[in-house]
């Protein structure tokens, strides 16, 4: 059998024909379904579907980007705060080693690092103390030693360490103790701790 013979056989096939009323009724059925669907749910203009989809996609992307950026920002801020270079053991040890018994404080503020050095090598050897002070958005930190007087975040502080590892900060108008974790007489945010892992 060749192709044209096959085609002629296929074209001989007749379909069971619906009754004549079917063809009269069919368009009405379609219209009824369309009207019913229109009542049940307003017809979505398909011209807007691709635009709507693109719009939604863009909104989702922007939201996701914003969320990721915000999250990373938070992570970065937190990591900077928790990874203050003044808490970096190596950095502090090497700085102190450059000026033996001369460093009163290493201060970090919005302008950068300041090294407060004594004119003579008479600073007693002890465990370095890390102090961070925030007065509103003005934050500064320093590494110093017990008995030293430092200027941090605009506050003049005397740093003291007791025999049990507690730290006391004395300002002009307040006293802060690491044991109480509160500053009496002001609203500064203060953190202080011994950098005991640094052995001099």
């Amino acid at each position, binding site marked *: 059998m060749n192709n044209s013979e096959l085609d002629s*056989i*296929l074209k001989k096939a007749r*379909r069971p024909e*619906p009754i004549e009323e079917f063809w009269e009724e069919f368009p009405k059925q*379609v219209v009824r379904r369309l009207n019913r669907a229109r009542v049940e749910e307003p017809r979505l203009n398909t011209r807007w579907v691709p635009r709507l989809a693109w719009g939604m996609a863009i909104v989702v992307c922007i939201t996701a980007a914003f969320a990721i950026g915000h999250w990373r920002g938070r992570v970065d801020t937190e990591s900077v705060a928790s990874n203050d270079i003044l808490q970096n053991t190596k950095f502090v040890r090497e700085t102190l080693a450059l000026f033996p018994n001369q460093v009163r404080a290493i201060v970090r503020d919005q302008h950068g690092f300041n090294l407060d050095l004594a004119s003579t090598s008479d600073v007693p050897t002890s465990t370095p103390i890390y102090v961070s002070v925030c007065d509103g958005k003005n934050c500064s930190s320093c590494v110093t030693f017990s008995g030293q007087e430092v200027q941090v975040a605009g506050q003049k502080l005397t740093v003291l360490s007791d025999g049990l590892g507690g730290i006391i900060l004395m300002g002009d108008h307040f006293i802060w103790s690491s044991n109480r974790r509160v500053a009496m007489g002001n609203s500064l945010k203060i953190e202080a701790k011994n950098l005991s892992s640094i052995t001099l």
Partner: protein
Amino acid sequence: MARMALSDDELACIQKSLADDTEAFAAFVKQHQKMIHALAFRMTGSLHDAEDLAQETFIRAYRQLASFRGDSKFSTWLCQIAVNLSLNWRKRENRRGEIHSKWAENAVAENSVPEEFPDALSRRIQAALDRLPPKQRAAIVLTVYENCSHAEVAKLMQCAEATISWRVFAARQKLKRLLGGFHHE
């Protein structure tokens, strides 16, 4: 929107339909219903399913009318919707068939052309068409019954012309085997 392949009447009808004039769309349905119904019947082998598919085709067409670019005939666009729906219908039917037992499958196969055909030849031809894979069946139905060229079918089924040629070739080989006896009768 390029409405190059449309007559003025069709264009007016589309514009009215886009303005939610379902009666205008009914004129389209009336004009193309027999062609779409025939195509649906060849694809499903069932009058009942053909009616459902044809209805669904027009409903889909109405909802997607705004996306009709007019670079092909309206009838071609309707065929495209009908073929896509029928291919999905076949997939659904196949999935449904998979859960039947072997006995039930045989019973379905034997009764897959239950309609009152005008003659035995017509019944046997439809049974042979039903045994083709859906995409081959679509290719042969469109080329033989709708007189589409391979290029037109390729555009309609959104694949390469060579793919359609291969499907038509494979379908013909199978149909020749299935309908071989009739050639000598």
